[in-house]
């Protein structure tokens, strides 16, 4: 069932392009005012999901509602309430930034005067007032993405779809896009973004769904996903000859991974890990192992992602 608090809700979305099954039954629910990250490798089906939710593509099966309206039956109602910024800057390169915004405003059926005022307002607010009169084809990659993002805000839509908003950008431009997204979320906009960058999802998203081969294989908050694969205890020994000894001690906790290169023995730890740390140090000392460093480490989202997408036959659920 769809809760009244959902900005985006989808159930059983399927889509096939010829022989490729792009989506094989995707369920999503994005609460109002939150940022939802769709994470997955290239070809996982992220873009297809966004295209269905933004009314560009029809699903073969399943249902989806955006801002309370069905994406198939009430497509025009949905279109008034969404903004879409694609992977590829979807601007008219032969127009200036300002003319692009005016054009889009008029296509949303704003009166010409209002469309013009709205274009000026958005350019000023997002620091592009000076660049506004230049042709878009002269813009840098970062500016292009920003104007693209801005043009999806013309109607101040409650739901925003951002399909890989920062792919191919330098770190500074990425930071600027992130700041803009955070600003929008502070205003109450719901954002659904797709990304291949885990740090982007970690930085921005309240909840993440990991998509692989057309299916959601895991979902939850970034913390939940990290907890799913658990923390690791890393021990770095002073002398590589002590590695077998250290491994023997750690084998009581779990299966140890030994890396002679970095003189590191690593072992996964369960829930009550904090109490074992002093005990482990004590035991290592008793075994005569000279320890250089001991650390309890939470996994990065990258590790979570690799674990999840590397073993797609193993169902992961939270």
């Amino acid at each position: 069932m769809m809760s009244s608090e959902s900005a985006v809700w989808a159930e059983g979305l399927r889509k096939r392009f010829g022989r490729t099954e792009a989506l094989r039954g995707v369920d999503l629910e994005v609460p109002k005012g939150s940022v939802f990250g769709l994470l997955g490798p290239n070809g996982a089906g992220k873009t297809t999901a966004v295209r269905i939710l933004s009314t560009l593509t029809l699903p073969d099966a399943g249902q989806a509602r955006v801002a309370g309206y069905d994406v198939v039956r009430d497509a025009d109602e949905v279109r008034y309430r969404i903004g879409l910024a694609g992977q590829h800057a979807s601007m008219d390169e032969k127009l200036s930034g300002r003319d692009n915004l005016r054009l889009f405003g008029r296509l949303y059926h704003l009166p010409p005067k209002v469309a013009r005022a709205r274009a000026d307002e958005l350019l000023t607010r997002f620091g592009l007032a000076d660049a506004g009169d230049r042709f878009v084809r002269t813009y840098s990659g970062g500016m292009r993405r920003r104007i693209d993002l801005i043009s999806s805000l013309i109607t101040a839509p409650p739901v925003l779809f951002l399909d890989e908003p920062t792919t191919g950008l330098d770190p500074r431009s990425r930071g600027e896009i992130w700041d803009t997204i955070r600003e929008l979320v502070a205003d109450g906009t719901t954002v659904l973004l797709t990304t291949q960058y885990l740090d982007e999802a970690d930085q921005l998203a309240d909840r993440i769904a990991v998509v692989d081969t057309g299916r959601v294989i895991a979902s939850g908050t970034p913390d939940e996903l990290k907890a799913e694969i658990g923390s690791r205890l890393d021990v770095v020994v002073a002398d590589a000859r002590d590695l077998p000894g250290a491994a023997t001690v750690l084998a009581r906790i779990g299966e140890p991974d030994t890396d002679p290169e970095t003189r590191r023995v690593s072992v996964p730890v369960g829930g009550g890990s904090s109490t074992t740390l002093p005990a482990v140090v004590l035991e290592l000392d008793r075994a005569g192992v000279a320890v250089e460093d001991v650390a309890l480490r939470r996994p990065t989202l990258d590790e979570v992602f690799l674990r999840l997408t590397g073993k797609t036959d193993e169902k992961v659920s939270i």
Partner: protein
Amino acid sequence: MVLELPAPPAGRASRIRWTLTDGVTLVWRNLIQLKSQPGELVGALIFPAIMIVLFGYVFGSAIKVPGGGNYREFLMPGLFAMTTFTSLMTTLLAVATDASKGVMDRFRSMPMARSAVPFGQVGGDIIIGMAGMVILVGCGFAVGWRIHHGVMSALAAFGLLLLLRYALSWAGVFLGLLVKNEETADQMLPLIFPVSMLSNSFVPTAGMPAWLRTVSDWNPVSALVAACRGLFGNPGVPSGHVALPLQHPVAATLLWSAALLAIFVPLSVRRYRTLNR
């Protein structure tokens, strides 16, 4: 700022009004695009003049008009037809660019009338085409081309040119939606020259080998050129035994236009609606 958004149209009448408004907005877009390419605009103005010099004076000096007459008077309807046929390529390129750059996707994510995008494209092309035609007519007058059969039949000739241009730009829209790739479209552009040359535009077809002559005579360009020559009263109107389209060039041009429209308007609108579905 609080934005008041109009509701989607309820009835048929407001749906049609929406389509028209969106179409006009997109025509406006096509026209303000010209601001970014003053070079192309200047090129478009100079190009007819170059063609007139090249054909009218360089090649024309060696070409004999059948039945006698001024070659430059023979040439002008050919140049009118040639610029008419370029509309196929310019709309093809514009539409393919929109599709490959993602502009089309943005339009489709907006609550606009679906058929407004192709209509706006061909509408903009017609206005630009009329401006180009005015320049070409000016150039023609400068080199001695004249209208001999009165204003009414001259208007009929311009009407035919515009009608076929409109029909051809619909074909361009469909092909643009089909290739969806700017580079491919760019590479197709030069193809328009052989198509307009393989006709009676620049030389009489009588001197061509039989098979080539058949191709040229049945080329819609030839029907258009023959119709214009007849209506303007310019030399080179074929006489005696000629191919069927050239016996009734006006009817042939009308038929070509009707056929193109009947095929490509529904195909384009349908293709635009179902793009990537």
